[in-house]
C-alpha cells in the first residue's frame, strides 16, 4: 500500500501582491507526475488547499483540475479542509467530488458517519483514514459533542482535541492500514513566517504525546516546513507546502512524502523533492555589493536588505534597476529609537510637559512661581498635579 502525503497548497496565495498561480499550477503538475510515477494508491491532501475563504475562479480551476488529474493516475484522493479553507464550500461540492472519485471530509464526523474513510489498495490491502479537518476553537465544542460518550465539561483546546482524535481513531480495523489525516498544530514543530500566527498560538497547540497510538501513520498539514514530529509515539509528519510561500521559508526545500505501509507494520517514509515554482531568496548588501547579483537571480523572488545611511527617495527604484524581482526592499541603517522617545513623553506629567514647552518656545527655564500656579490651576480644573 502506497500513500502520498501532501497539503498546504495555498492556491491563490500572493507575495507582495504578485500572483503565484502559474507557479502553483506548475508544482501541482509536478505532484501529479510523482503520483503517477510512484503508482500511489491513495493521495492524502491535508488541508489549506486554498489560500482564501473565497478563492478566485482561477484558483478553483487549478485545484479541481489537479484533483481530477490525481484521480486519473488511478490513485484514490482524499481531501480535508484546513484553516484557510472554507469548509462549507467543500461541503457544498462533496457529492460532485464523489462523482469524480474524489473524497472530501469537510467537517469532523463520527467514525461511523464518514469520519473514517476506507480505500482498497492495488495490492489487495485496505486502508482506513481517520479524518480530522481543522477545528477552530469556537467550533470545538460542537465537534467534541459529536464524539463524546457521556456528559463531560468542556476543557481547553489542547486537552479537548486529543480526546476528539482518540475517539475518531478508537475503532479502526487492525487488519487494515490505519492512518490519521489531520490539520492541526503540534507543539515542537518548526515554523516559518507563512503560517498564520494566531492559529499557531499556544492555545491551539497539541503535544506530540497526545497524538493517537492506534494508527500506523499520522499525516499532518498546517506547518509549511516538511518535518517529522519529534517525540510522537506513532510516526507523524508535516508534509509541508509545495512552494516557498514567504521569505521566512526562503531557505526551506519543499517536498511531498511517500509512505509505504503494510497492515500492522511500521511505515517507510520517503521525501520526493519538488522543484517547480520560483525560489525565494534574501540578499543583503550596499548598492555596489548588490551589483554582484545582477542577472544571477532572474527566476527567484527577492527580498533585499540594503545597507545604507538612511532612506532616500528613489532608493527602491535603484535596487530594482539592478534586481527587478526584488519584492521587498528593506533598509538597514542605524535607526533612532522612537519607542524611547514615546516612553519619555508618556512619562511626562502635565507640569513637566509645560516646562518643556516653555523651554522650547522661549529658550529659558520657566519661573517656579509660574509652575506653582500651573499646578494650582490644574488641580482646580480636575487634573492632579504630579
Amino acid at each position, binding site marked *: 500500500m502506497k500513500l502520498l502525503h501532501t497539503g498546504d497548497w495555498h492556491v491563490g496565495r500572493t507575495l507582495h501582491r504578485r500572483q503565484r498561480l502559474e507557479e502553483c499550477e506548475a508544482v501541482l503538475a509536478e505532484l501529479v507526475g510523482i503520483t503517477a510515477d510512484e503508482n500511489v494508491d491513495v493521495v492524502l491532501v491535508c488541508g489549506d488547499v486554498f489560500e482564501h475563504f473565497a478563492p478566485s475562479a482561477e484558483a478553483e480551476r487549478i485545484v479541481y483540475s489537479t484533483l481530477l488529474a490525481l484521480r486519473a493516475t488511478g490513485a484514490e484522493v482524499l481531501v480535508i479542509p484546513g484553516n484557510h479553507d472554507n469548509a462549507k464550500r467543500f461541503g457544498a461540492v462533496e457529492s460532485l467530488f464523489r462523482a469524480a472519485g474524489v473524497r472530501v471530509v469537510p467537517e469532523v464526523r463520527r467514525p461511523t458517519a464518514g469520519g473514517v474513510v476506507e480505500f482498497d489498495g492495488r495490492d489487495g490491502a485496505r486502508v482506513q483514514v481517520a479524518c480530522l479537518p481543522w477545528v477552530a476553537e469556537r467550533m470545538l465544542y460542537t465537534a467534541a459533542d459529536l464524539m463524546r460518550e457521556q456528559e463531560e465539561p468542556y476543557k481547553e483546546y489542547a486537552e479537548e482535541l486529543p480526546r476528539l482524535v482518540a475517539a475518531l481513531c478508537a475503532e479502526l480495523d487492525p487488519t487494515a492500514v490505519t492512518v490519521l489525516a489531520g490539520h492541526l498544530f503540534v507543539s515542537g514543530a518548526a515554523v516559518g513566517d507563512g503560517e498564520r500566527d494566531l492559529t499557531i498560538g499556544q492555545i491551539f497547540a497539541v503535544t506530540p504525546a497526545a497524538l493517537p497510538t492506534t494508527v500506523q501513520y499520522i499525516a499532518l498539514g498546517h506547518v509549511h516546513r516538511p518535518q517529522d514530529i519529534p517525540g510522537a509515539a506513532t510516526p507523524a509528519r508535516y508534509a509541508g507546502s509545495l512552494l516557498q510561500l514567504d521569505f521566512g521559508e526562503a531557505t526551506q526545500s519543499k517536498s511531498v512524502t511517500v509512505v509505504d505501509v503494510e497492515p500492522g507494520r511500521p511505515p517507510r517514509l520517503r521525501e520526493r523533492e519538488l522543484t517547480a515554482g520560483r525560489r525565494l531568496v534574501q540578499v543583503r548588501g550596499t548598492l555596489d555589493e548588490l551589483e554582484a547579483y545582477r542577472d544571477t537571480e532572474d527566476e527567484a523572488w527577492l527580498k533585499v536588505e540594503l545597507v545604507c545611511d538612511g532612506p532616500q527617495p528613489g532608493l527602491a527604484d535603484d535596487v530594482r534597476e539592478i534586481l527587478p524581482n526584488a519584492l521587498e526592499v528593506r533598509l538597514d541603517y542605524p535607526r533612532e529609537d522612537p519607542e524611547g522617545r514615546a516612553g519619555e513623553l508618556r512619562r511626562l506629567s502635565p507640569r513637566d510637559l509645560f516646562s518643556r514647552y516653555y523651554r522650547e518656545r522661549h529658550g529659558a527655564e520657566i519661573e517656579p512661581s509660574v509652575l506653582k*500656579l500651573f499646578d494650582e490651576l490644574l488641580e482646580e480644573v480636575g487634573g492632579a498635579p504630579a
Partner: protein
Amino acid sequence: MRPRRLELHGFTAFRDPQEIDFTDLDLFVITGPTGAGKTSLLDAVALALYGQVPRMGKQGLGQLVSHGKAEARILLEFAVDGDSYRVARRLPRSGAQQGRFERWSGEQWVDAVERGGIKPVNDAILDLVKLDFESFCKAIVLPQGEFARFLKGEPAERRKTLVALLGLGAYERMGALARDRSKELRIKGEQTRTILAEQYADATPEALAEADQSADATASAAETAGVTLSSARDIDGRRTRAVAHGATAAGLAERFAALAQDVLGEVEAAKSAGLAHRDASERCEAERGLLEAAKKDRADAAANRAEVVGRHGTPEEVARVADALERRALLDQRVDEAEQQLELATQTLDMLRGEHEARVAADVQAQAALEAAAAVEMTKQTEAQRLSGDRDLLQRRAEDAATAATEHDIETAALIDLEKLAGDPAADVATARATHTDAMAASEALRRDHLVVALVAGLEAGDPCPVCQRPLAEHPATDSDVERRLAEAKRAADSAAEAVDVAQRKAADAAASLTAAKTRIGDAARRLAAVLGDFADRSALETAATLASTEASTAEAARADAESERTAAQEHKHAAALAATKSQAELEAATREQALRAEGRAHATADRDAALLVLHEHFGGAVPEDAADRVARARAELREADEHADAASRAEAAAHDAVAAADEVQRQALAGLTTLDLRLGQLRTRAEGACADLAGVPLGFELGDLPEPSEARDERAEQLATWCSTAHLALVAAAREHDETATVAAREIVQLAAAQDLEAGDAVAALAALEKAEKDAIEARARSEESLRRLGERVSQRAQLEAAISEDAGQISVLDVLGVELRADHFVDFVIQETLDVLAVHASKELLRISDDRYSLVSDEGEFSVVDHVNADEKRSVKTLSGGETFMASLALALALSKHVSDLAGEGLGARLEAVFIDEGFGSLDPETLEEVIDALERLREDDLLIGVISHVPALAERIRVGLHVQKDGNRSVVVEAS
C-alpha cells in the same frame, strides 16, 4: 468605556426585546443583511450613553421607535476602569426621554446621579466617560465611510478630536482661569488704592507722635485732680462726724428732759395705790366669817328632810300611790268591756267559717257539671265531622262520574262523525288498483309494438328477418305513432300507480283515526267505571250522596245544642268560683278582728294588776279606809321639808358671792401696785438706754451713774426725776460745741474748691464739684488713649494694604504669563503636536504588527505619512494609500488612540477607550485586501480590547467566526449569537 450588556426594547427594527452580552467577546463581527439593523446596535449604544445617535443627533429620535410601539427602551451596562455602570433610557415616540444612571456598589445598583431629569444623567455619563458625543462617534464608533477620517482628514478636525479625547480643554480652561484671575486681581488693586487714598490719608507716623504727647498731658491732669479730691474728702469726713455728734447730743438732751417730766407724773400715783391696797385686805376677812354660818344652816335643813322621807317615802312614791288609789275603779271597768268585745268577735268568726265551706262545695259541684257538658259536646262534634266527611266524598265522586260520562258521550259522537267521513276506503283502493292494472296492460301492448318497430328499423325488403333469418319479402308495416302512445300509456300507468298509493295511504290513515277514537272511548268508559266503584250506576251514587247530606245536617244541629249547654255550665261555674273567693276574704278579716280583741283584753288586765300591786306594797297588805287622808298628810309634810332645805341653800350661795367680790377688790389693788412698779422700771430703762446712746459721743465731761433705786415707790420716782434734769442741761452745752467744729471744716472745703477755680456756696457743693472735675479728667485721659490706639491700628493696616498691592502685582505678572501660554494656539498646540508624534510612534507599532512588518506611520507638522518598509522606507502620503492600506493605517491609529489616550492626556485627564466598533462596509475590497484586513483583525485578538466589526461580508464573519448575527424576518429583526 467597555460595553458589557445591551438590552433593546422596541428600538428600530428590533421590535421584540433583544439582549446582547459583550462580556465574553474580544474581537467579533456583527453580521447580517443590509438594512437588518447592524448599525442600529451601535446607535443604541450611543443613544444609551449620550441620548443621541450618530447622523441624527438629538432631533427626531422618535422615529427610532419601532413601528407599532409607543416607546423604545435601552439599557446599557458598561465598565469604566473596572467599575460597573448601567444606564437605561426610555425614548417615547414623541415627548421627552427619561433616563436613569446607576453604579454597581458591589452589592447592588445605586443611583449615580443625585438629581432627577435627563440632563444630570447625561452630564454624569459625560463626566465618567470623558468623551463627548462627537469624539465618541470618531473614536469608539467608527462609522461607515468615516473610519479613515482621523487618518486622512483635515488637521483642524484631528485637532478637535484630540482636544476632546485628551481632555486638553482642561489647559484652555486653566488659561481662561488665569486670565480671569489676573483681571480680578487688577480690579482688586485699583479698589485698594482708592481705599488708601480715601480712608487712610491721615494715618501717618507724625500724627501718631502728636497723639502720644496729648495722651501724656491728660494723664498728669487726672492725677492732680485725684490728689485734691482725696484731701477734700478727709476734711469733709471730719465735718460730717462733728455734725453727727452735735445732733446726737441735742437729741439726747431732749430725751432726758421728757424723761424727767414723765417720772415726776408717777409720784402721786404711787402714794394713792398704797392706801387702796390696805382697805381691800380688811373687807376680805369680814366676808369669810359670814360664809361659815350659812354653810351650817344648810346642813341642818337637809337632815330634817331626810327624816320626813324616811317616814313617808319619797315624794314620787307617794304620788304613785295616790294615782293608783284614784284609778282603781276605772281599770276594773275597762277589763270588763274588753271581755265582752272578744266574745262578740269569736261568734262572728264561727258564723263566717260555716258560710265559706258551703260556697266551696257549690263551686266543686259546678265544675263537675261543666266537665260533663264538655264531654257531650265533644262526642257530638266527632259525629258531625264524620258525617260531613262522608257527604263531601260522595258529592265529589258524583261530580267525577258526571265528567267521565260527558267525556264518553263526546268521544262516542266523534267516532260516529269519523265513520261518516271515512266512507268506504277499501272500495276506493280496489277501484284505483283496477285502473292501474288496465293502464299497465295497455302499456305492455304498446311496448311490444315498439320493439317491433326497433327491430325492423333500417330493414329493407330482402334482408334476413331478425327473428327467423328468412329474407323479408317486404318491409314490415310499423306504427309510426307507437312511440308517442307508449309514452302516454306509461304516464297513465304511472299516474294510476300513484292513485293506488294515495288511496292506500288514505285507507290506512282512516283506519288509524278510527282505532285511535275507539281507544279513547274505551279509556273514557274505564274512567267512569273506576269512579262508580261499588255503586250500580250514577243515580245510586247521587241518592247516597243526598242521604249522607241529610245525616250530616242532623248531627250538626245536635252538636250546636251540646255547645250551648256547655256554655251555660261554664257561666254557672264562674259565678260559684267568685262567691267562694269572696267568702274566703270575709273569713280572713273576721279572724284578724278576733285576734285584735284578745290582745285588748290582755292589756286591760295587766294595767289593773299593776295598780293593785302598788297599793299592796305601800300599805303592806290591805288598803286602809283612810288611805286617802294619810296620803294627803304625808304629801304636806314632805313639801314643807323641801321648802326649808331650799331656803338654806340659797343663803349659803349669797355668802359665797360676797366673799368672791371682796377677793376681787383686793386683787385689783395689788395689780395697781404691780403696774406702778412696771412703769417706774420702764422709765429707768429709758434713762439707761439714753445713757447707752451717749456712749461714743464726746462730751468734754463725766455725767455720772444713775442713782440706786430706794424701797418706797414715791421716793424712788423723785430721785430719778432729779438725775434726768441734770443730764439734760449738760448735753445741751455739748451739742453747741460740736456745731462750732463743723462750721470750721466746711469753710476749709470751700477754700480748697476755690483754689481749683470752682465756685461753691457750701461744703457739699464744693465736694461734688471736685469729684466731677476728677471724673472729667479721667475720661479725658481714656479718650486720648483710645484715639492713640486706633490711629496705631490704622497706620499698620495701611502698611498691610500697601504690601498686598505689591504682592498682587507679582501674582498678576505670573497669571499673565499662564494666561498667554495656555491659549489654544500655544501650549495646547504644542501638546497636540507632541501627541501626534507619540501617537505616530504607537500607531507604527500597531501598524507594523497588523501589516506584518510592512508599514509604519510618521507624523510631520500634524500630517500623517506611511513608511513602506518593503520599498526602501519610501514615505507616502496617506492620501495615496490603497483600501487595505488605508484600513490598516486607520485601524492602527484607532488602536493607538484607544490604548494610549489616557497616557497621552496626562494623569487624571482624558478618556480611556476600552472598546472600538468599526462600522465599515468592506464590501468593496478585493479578496486579497480583504484577506489582509482579516489578517490584520486577527492579529488583534490578543489585545485586551473589545473590537466589534460590522460587516455584511460573509468571508469576514466566516474567518472571525465569533459574532452576533442580525436576522431580519419581515419587518422585525433579532440578534442571534453566531459561532
